[in-house]
């Protein structure tokens, strides 16, 4: 198990390096420099700026310089935020996104599995039909639709929840629910399908026929297999929660890192783009590792030897 874990961690490093390189190259093809303003600047000033932000030299020189600084943990100064390092910017914003993401993740797991179980266990009942319909609508609603609805209903009409900002636990409710809406619906569908499939399997029917109690049947066989199936979704789920946050954070003014996925690119803030991409990639690698380990722990059948990914 430990060897497996170590192996997976090591495999992640070349991925990160490739990610950094690919993003670095993609960025160099972007049109426009980072210093266009409404007032055009005299050329001597433009030269000064190029020097300050290390935009001089060939592409190869810039790349080597970048890798060197990366190895020292220096993600460089931001182009748009004068005087601030990318590392500082991320240190402030990543925890917020992680908090928001964790809340949404919890909602998704608890909500998705709970609703999926309720629906799958009582197939074709009214409960099942209601939940199925709800989850269908849920996967069809973009986050800005859910967000707008949430603000109008809970913010303005009912005045229960603040429509934005991040001043306390109450402020996290609307953004987390908005972010979790689509994933919860999808997780519900996954769980329900899996539960229904498992309930149909021979060994469950046999167990039932042999008189083993209903609840134990459900708990042991159904839950575990359903969980295993849903866990394959956790990797993509993290990705969705992290990148989906850019719309939610914008609508609700939450100070996370989601917005940088977009603004750093449109601002041509190259160091910030690279920093954000690397953080994201690192999180994905870690998350995938965690899921794999969890999977291996839950299902002994796959612990020994790794074949095809």
């Amino acid at each position, binding site marked *: 198990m430990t060897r497996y874990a170590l192996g997976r961690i090591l495999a992640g490093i070349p991925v990160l390096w490739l990610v950094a390189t690919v993003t670095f190259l993609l960025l160099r093809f972007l049109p426009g420099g980072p210093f266009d303003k409404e007032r055009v600047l005299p050329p001597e000033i433009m030269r000064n700026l190029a020097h300050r932000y290390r935009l001089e030299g060939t592409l190869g020189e810039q790349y080597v310089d970048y890798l060197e600084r990366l190895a020292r943990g220096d993600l460089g100064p931001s182009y748009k935020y004068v005087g601030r390092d990318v590392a500082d910017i991320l240190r402030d914003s990543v925890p917020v996104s992680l908090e928001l993401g964790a809340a949404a993740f919890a909602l998704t797991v608890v909500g998705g599995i709970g609703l999926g179980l309720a629906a799958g266990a009582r197939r074709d009942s009214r409960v099942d039909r209601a939940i199925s319909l709800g989850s269908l609508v849920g996967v069809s609603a973009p986050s800005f639709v859910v967000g707008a609805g949430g603000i109008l209903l809970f913010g303005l009409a009912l005045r229960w929840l*603040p*429509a934005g*900002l991040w001043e306390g636990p109450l402020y996290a409710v609307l953004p987390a629910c908005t972010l979790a809406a689509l994933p919860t619906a999808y997780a519900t569908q996954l769980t329900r399908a899996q539960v229904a499939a498992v309930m149909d399997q021979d060994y469950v029917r046999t167990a039932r026929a042999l008189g083993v109690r209903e609840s134990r049947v459900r708990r042991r066989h159904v839950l575990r297999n359903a969980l295993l199936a849903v866990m394959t979704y956790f990797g993509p789920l993290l990705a969705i929660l992290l990148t989906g946050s850019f719309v939610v954070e914008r609508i609700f003014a939450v100070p996370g890192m989601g917005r940088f996925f977009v603004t750093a690119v449109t601002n041509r803030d190259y160091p910030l783009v690279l920093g954000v991409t690397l953080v994201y990639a690192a999180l994905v690698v870690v998350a995938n590792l965690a899921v794999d380990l969890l999977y291996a722990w839950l299902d002994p059948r796959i612990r020994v030897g790794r074949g095809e990914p």
Partner: protein
Amino acid sequence: MRGLALAALFAVACSRGASRAPARQLRINLETEPPTLDWNLATDGVSIVAIEQLMRGLTRLGPDLAPEPDLAEHWDVSPDGRTYTFHLRQGVNWSDGVPLVAQHFVDSWQRLLAPATAAEYAYFLFGVRGARAYNAGKLGDFGAVGVHAPDDRTLVVELDAPLVYFPALVNFMVTFPLRRDLVERFGDRWTEPGNLVTLGPFVLAEWRHEYRLVLTANEHYWAGRPPLDRITAYMVQEGSTALVLFEQGLLDLVRIPPLEIRRYAERPEYLRRPLLRGYYYGFNVRKPPFDDVRVRRAFALAIDRAQFPGLLRGGEVPAASWIPAGMPFANAELGLPFDPERARALLREAGVDPAQLAPVKIVYNSDQTNKLVAEKVQAFWRDGLGVRVEVENREWKVYLRELSTDPPAVFRLGWGADFPDPDNFLNLFTSYSENNHTGWANPDYDALVERAAREPDTAERQRLYDRAQRILCEEDVPMVPLFDTSANFAVSPRVHGFVPSAMDLFFFEKVSAE
């Protein structure tokens, strides 16, 4: 079920508590993170909101936008208009107790002009003798630049040529004094809370980047402690969300999004302020058909500016001349009116057949207002002149690149006053201005603008600017002014004394909140 009801009650209780507004505290929306609080480096309208509460300069602008003493108690001008001597006020201290001295201004201006600083606004002080050369790295010693502090309370500035508006110019943030010792000690982090030392009515207490900025009252402010204890400036980008927060009582001051203005028009919280900010369409006079002045005049005559207020509803003031209303030497009687008949006649005279003409392209940078204006102008030209018009938009940076390298046939731009003098607006279109994207050059116009900048006699100056505007807006028409913009605010009734200036600057010094 019961659990749900309890949770709901709890939520309601919490939210009620959260929206009770704290006394003597102001919560505003900055809309976005200020790129910097370093007043030598800042260039934008967001940073300036915070900087103006933290720092002051030699002069400030009065309600009539004339320069008034601030840190400079009074000033003298030499007879040739080239030397200004500012006498500093006594008893002004920085927030760490160090007294303000004239050398702090010299240090600040040196830093602004130093090549290594790479300040984008360095050219702001190019009127000072030697400043341009120093910034280009041609002068090694700042002593050769025309700004000196002969003693702690006197600042002497020597200009290349007499600039009538110089006292107004030094109200602008890039000329504020600076503590060089602190900048050297803290480097790029000198503007972080705990490091930053200022001398204005407020001090920086907290800066949670991309989220909120907190300013607290400066107990030792020379003009007296401000009534507010604390200002929290949030950074909410979505105008609608900010407005909802305002209505929930979580914010006290917000800008109203354009389409919501109608709903607020009659409400007591609404506050509108016309600004010294103009919006214009420019022609690239090198690209046919706009190389013919009659065609340019025709297209200008076909625009019905009176429709913009109803379309945008933001208090836009239709403007046919370029110096904005409210700025000294403005003249609303200048400029071309709406006359589609004359427009069509001019086109015929120029030998242009609208049906045969290639589609004219209007290019603008993406923005709700710009989009509406472009589509409106497209309709004017289509219906009034019979010309085919395409509308294209660009990302801001790509747009600017295009303007510098190959300006589109028709483009849009705005310009806000850095200091309240018409020179700031008219020198935009001189032949040597780097911001003149029309490609138009008229030596008579250049001469008029330069003479007017130095002209001390008000009546003569008015005459010169009128003549210049005639050339710009009626005769040669390289650009068409459309309207002057206004700022539209929603202000909570618990806030008193909020008076935004026409330069779109807020001063919270005299503001109080229950």
